[in-house]
């Protein structure tokens, strides 16, 4: 177990620190692209990705830094992408919302809510044909479940028993709109179960709860090929919807609601379980990695203007 804790701590701490650094840099306009930070939501990214194999696939959203990193995406390529550099994960064409790393089986994020869901289902369709027991984990927010494409996707994936784990990161808000203004009933699991998909709700935010649920779902998909599973993970976005700051003063939510989540912080919780020197070592490693990645991003060249019209079509 201690192995797991070390690994998980490294993963959540790394994501947290990367995003904190992004937030610090942001006012400089070096990152000229909207950033949707996952600070506070790391447990969902890490808890699920921790049980995936290297060649399992992750599909995600514009709020995708955490999943990208948790699945093994390269930090240098990510920072360079945020800086708009030619060495970025998408060569500077995608920015923060369109991180991708096919080497690590990270499907690109989409800036249009819910649009990556059917794409992920299509990838799972191909994996099923391939018969190598690979699975897709597909992240999306609570808001995404309101789009018709979500229902069409779960119906098809269940009908064809596709190997896909749907992971709803329910942070209670779509931008500033609370669930009550958007969902006729609060129970998304019931909606999903009605399509014959096993669904589990995890309200604790606890990374081990998430990890265990994901592990059992993935195990079933790999051993029984029993079709899609669904996890609803409650979580909380600590910063504003888009951008580097907190926004508790803006009135749509209360800092008091957040405090239970601050107390529940997986970075702190996991950190506490580690010996002090282990923790320091990890923290130091992370800071060094971030420093290097920033240097890489800073020093990398911008794409040349002459490339603008190249590669619209694949050859």
């Amino acid at each position, binding site marked *: 177990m201690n192995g797991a804790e070390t690994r998980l701590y490294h993963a959540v701490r790394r994501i947290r620190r990367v995003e904190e650094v992004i937030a610090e840099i942001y006012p400089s306009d070096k990152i000229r692209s909207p950033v949707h930070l996952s600070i506070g939501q790391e447990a969902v990214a890490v808890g699920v990705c921790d049980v995936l194999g290297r060649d399992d696939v992750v599909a995600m959203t514009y709020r995708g830094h955490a999943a990208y990193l948790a699945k093994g995406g390269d930090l240098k390529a990510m920072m360079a992408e945020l800086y708009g550099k030619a060495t970025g994960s*998408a060569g500077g064409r995608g920015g923060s919302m369109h991180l991708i790393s096919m080497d690590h089986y990270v*499907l690109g994020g989409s800036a249009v809510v819910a649009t990556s869901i*059917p794409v992920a*289902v299509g990838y799972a*369709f191909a994996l099923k044909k391939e018969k190598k027991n690979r699975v897709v984990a597909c992240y999306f927010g609570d808001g995404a479940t309101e789009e018709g494409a979500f229902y069409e996707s779960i119906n*098809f994936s269940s009908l064809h028993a596709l190997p896909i784990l749907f992971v709803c990161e329910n942070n209670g808000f779509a931008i500033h709109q609370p669930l009550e203004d958007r969902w006729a009933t609060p129970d998304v699991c019931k909606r999903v179960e009605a399509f014959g998909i096993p669904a589990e709700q995890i309200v604790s935010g606890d990374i081990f709860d998430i990890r265990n649920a994901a592990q059992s779902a993935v195990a079933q998909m790999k051993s029984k090929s029993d079709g899609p599973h669904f996890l609803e993970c409650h979580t909380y976005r600590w910063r504003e919807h888009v951008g580097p700051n907190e926004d508790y003063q803006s009135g749509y939510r209360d800092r008091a609601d957040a405090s239970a989540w601050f107390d529940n912080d997986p970075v702190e919780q996991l950190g506490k379980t580690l010996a002090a020197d282990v923790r320091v070592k990890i923290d130091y490693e992370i800071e060094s990695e971030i420093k290097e990645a920033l240097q890489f991003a800073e020093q990398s060249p911008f794409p040349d203007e002459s490339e603008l019209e190249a590669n619209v079509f694949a050859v």
Partner: protein
Amino acid sequence: MSLRSEKAHVISYAEALNEAVAQEMRIDPNVFVMGLDVDDHLGILGSTVGLVDEFGADRVFSTPLSEDAMTGVSIGSAMAGLRPIHVHIRMDFLMLCMNQLINIASKAHYMYGGAVNVPMVVRSIIGKSWGQGAQHSQALYSMFAHVPGIRIVAPSNAYDAKGCMTTAIRDNNPVLFVEHRLLYYTEADVPQEQFEVPFGVANICAPGSDVTIVAISNMVIESLRARELLDGIGIDAEIIDPISLVPLDIETIVASVEKTGHLLVVDNAWISCGMSAEIVAQVIQKASTPVRVDRLGFAPVPCPTTPTLEDAFYPNPATIASTAFRLLNPEMPDWAPDPERAALAYQQKFRGPF
């Protein structure tokens, strides 16, 4: 050349599509066909008949009525290395999948810095309405031509249908394949073996020196008939079929217009912001000689169902011929050909209900 190819192999447009898909499926296990009703006894007007028997339900299957998500499924499977052919029996239904087509399929390769390809074919049938009305008669390819990243082909005969389909399946990009329903019954001598019709090469269907008529999809047939009508009064029209709309072989069109000095674009779609506008604008920008132009397409209304209005909704050989005449002779009184002579045999074959 094999013996087989020396015999005539006269097949219909529907058979040509079917044959191209089947032949490619035989050699490429990644190709699959999905879409509403691709596996029933009617098989999309015959164009998918028999495929499920040969290739099985894993590779040929009907889907739920979920065009939006199924387009995403095509895209995702294509990113994973498969080669989906997603069939829509009417192009009107593409309005349900615009988000996936415009916001993902057309952009993925560029937006993700080349990390993924989206080799998919989106087949969609357009067609003269026969009282099907405003929601079952649209030809909306110009919307796609507005957005970079999607190839568009609209073959006008069985030969091009087969060759373009093979090219489309092998292309590593999304290809919108536009098929006119009335062309399904037309036949041509088509090579039995596989072949590719390259995208971006227009076909000069009939040479002429007085006016260039660029005609899209079934308007090629209507324009060829118009050419005969014009010929009767001594006007010599050159008919150009662009075959592929994206990429567009503008050079061939410009060369023709520089010769004739007159351009009439006949589209099988609305005019405003359509392919006809684009072709006219490009020709005007590129031609080195003075040019006079006109455009024909759908009337600027939703397609009505009643025959009297519906007949007037579409361009036809008579309106094409008289528009060309007016373009050449703006000072003369209008001329209209004999309606009997202007009728097209191939249209008589088509009767409802759909």
